[in-house]
């Protein structure tokens, strides 16, 4: 095993166990892991955004090789054609940057307005199509053809289709705000909230299973790192963290009480 792999395993074990130490309470190991994580990720995102987006997609299109702006001495060859429209994102980006100066803080609004307006326009169609029309279509279920059994646990059935229609309508009516939820209407919307809660419960269980698999993944790594190949990285770090936390706890009785 190379030295860099062993060092990487020790760092990974330290950061993983540092984050897990939060289960005890906020402590220096968690703070170290948190700040390293935040700092590294912020820098990483900045670097990735520049080198994979701004550099090839913006500069590559505004200053292509042999493009009309080649006289400036700036040429970026990413096989893109010159596109003057890319001046707008450049200007909006610069306006966002300039807004760090107090007197130009208003400039940021242009970029924000552009982002929100474009997103609203683009997504309106998608939402109407997928969240409304497709849902309406899915609600026009087969109830009377006679081709479906009345009840089936595993597939389509008339009963399941009735549940689907009633669930859709009652949940939709739960979000009706112009009328107080009392009387028969209130009972119907209460049925809607039961349907919603059942679906949330199923979603919750599904997501928890996903989280458990993530946890198993981390434990697998920690188990790997506890082998002799990695100089017992997990065990060493775990022992170090437990001992240090123990000493730290005894030295900070006030924090312990909190």
């Amino acid at each position, binding site marked *: 095993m190379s030295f860099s792999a062993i060092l990487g395993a020790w760092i990974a074990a330290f950061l993983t166990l540092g*984050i897990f130490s*939060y289960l005890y309470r*906020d402590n220096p190991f968690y703070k170290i892991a*948190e700040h390293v*994580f*935040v700092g*590294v*990720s*912020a820098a990483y*995102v900045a670097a990735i955004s520049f080198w994979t987006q701004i550099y090839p997609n913006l500069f590559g299109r505004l200053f292509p090789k042999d493009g009309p702006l080649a006289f400036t001495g700036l040429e970026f060859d990413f096989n893109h054609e010159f596109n003057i429209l890319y001046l707008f994102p450049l200007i909006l980006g610069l306006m*966002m940057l300039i*807004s760090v100066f107090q007197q130009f*803080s208003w400039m*940021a*609004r242009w*970029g*924000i307005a552009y*982002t*929100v307006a*474009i*997103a*609203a326009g683009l*997504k*309106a*169609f998608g939402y*109407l*199509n997928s969240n*409304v*029309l*497709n849902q*309406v*279509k899915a*609600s*026009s*279920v*087969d*109830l*009377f*053809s*006679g*081709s479906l059994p009345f009840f089936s646990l595993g597939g389509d059935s008339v009963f399941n289709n009735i549940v689907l*229609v009633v669930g*859709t*309508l009652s949940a*939709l*009516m739960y*979000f*009706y*705000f*112009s*009328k*107080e939820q009392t009387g028969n209407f209130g009972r119907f919307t209460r049925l809607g909230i039961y349907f*919603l*809660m059942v679906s*949330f*419960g199923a*979603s*919750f269980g599904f*997501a928890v299973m996903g*989280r458990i698999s993530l946890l198993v993944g981390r434990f697998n790594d920690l188990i790997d790192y506890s082998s002799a190949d990695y100089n017992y990285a997990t065990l060493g770090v775990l022992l170090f963290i437990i001992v240090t936390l123990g000493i730290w706890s005894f030295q900070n009785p006030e924090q312990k009480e909190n």
Partner: protein
Amino acid sequence: MNNKFTVYALGIVGIVLLTLALSVMPDSLNFFREDKSAMFVFTLIVIMVMLYEVKLAKNSSEPIFLRTIPGLKAVEEAVGRSTEMGRPILYVPGIMDMNEVETVAGVVVLGHVANMTAQYETELDVPVARAIVMQSARQVTKEAYLTQGRPEMFNEDMVHYITDDQFAYAAAVNGIMQRDEPAACLYMGKFFAESLLFAETGNSIGAIQIAGTGSQTQIPFFVTACDYTLMGEEFFAASAYLSKQPELIAGITAQDIIKIILVGFIFLLIVSRAFFDLGVTEFNLVTWLGL
């Protein structure tokens, strides 16, 4: 009221006739796509209802009735609780950018919360995960403090960027919760897997927690761990509720009318399909509309 529904009925008939007229135009003109007719009709109906409801709200002197949403009342309670305890309010506007409707709604609600914190002189902390959200949240917060006549209380660092990375952001926000111990934690925006991390930590420090999101997969976590949850459209309606402006509230009543239209449409499709399946008619509305 009857007059209103007559207008809508006539409007819908007019829109359908317009669509039929456009659909008979020759294909060579390439002017109208018939396969998108249902979308065209529905979009025009939405626009018509929205505009007419806003017009009615502007001209009406009577307040528009909206049922109470407990989670929204709790926002003011949360600010009051923080003020009494002398502890800050943590406001998390989600982890996505301003191109997500939930983030926009979250920033709008932030403006109302900032109005209250300016009024009550309560400390507000808004960690954000996106640069454009940071700028928007700063603008909104600053405006709220100016509106309340407390510009000296506004500090740009109230809204501070952490990182774009989802779990690094979650780790940092959890750290802030542990160290600053806010009395109230508000999560309003688009969330993913970090939602339960926030809500569990907020729960462990004893903060009153109110969440609002349209992220269907995250609502269960907020429902489980928060004191109040604004689910889906309740969250989108929140800004109108809190603003108490008739024009914005009219948007909610317009959406209610659209829901009624949709319920009627679903019934129509079910009946149409039933007649088709039973062999009463050869005509299926779903197929005809190209849905």
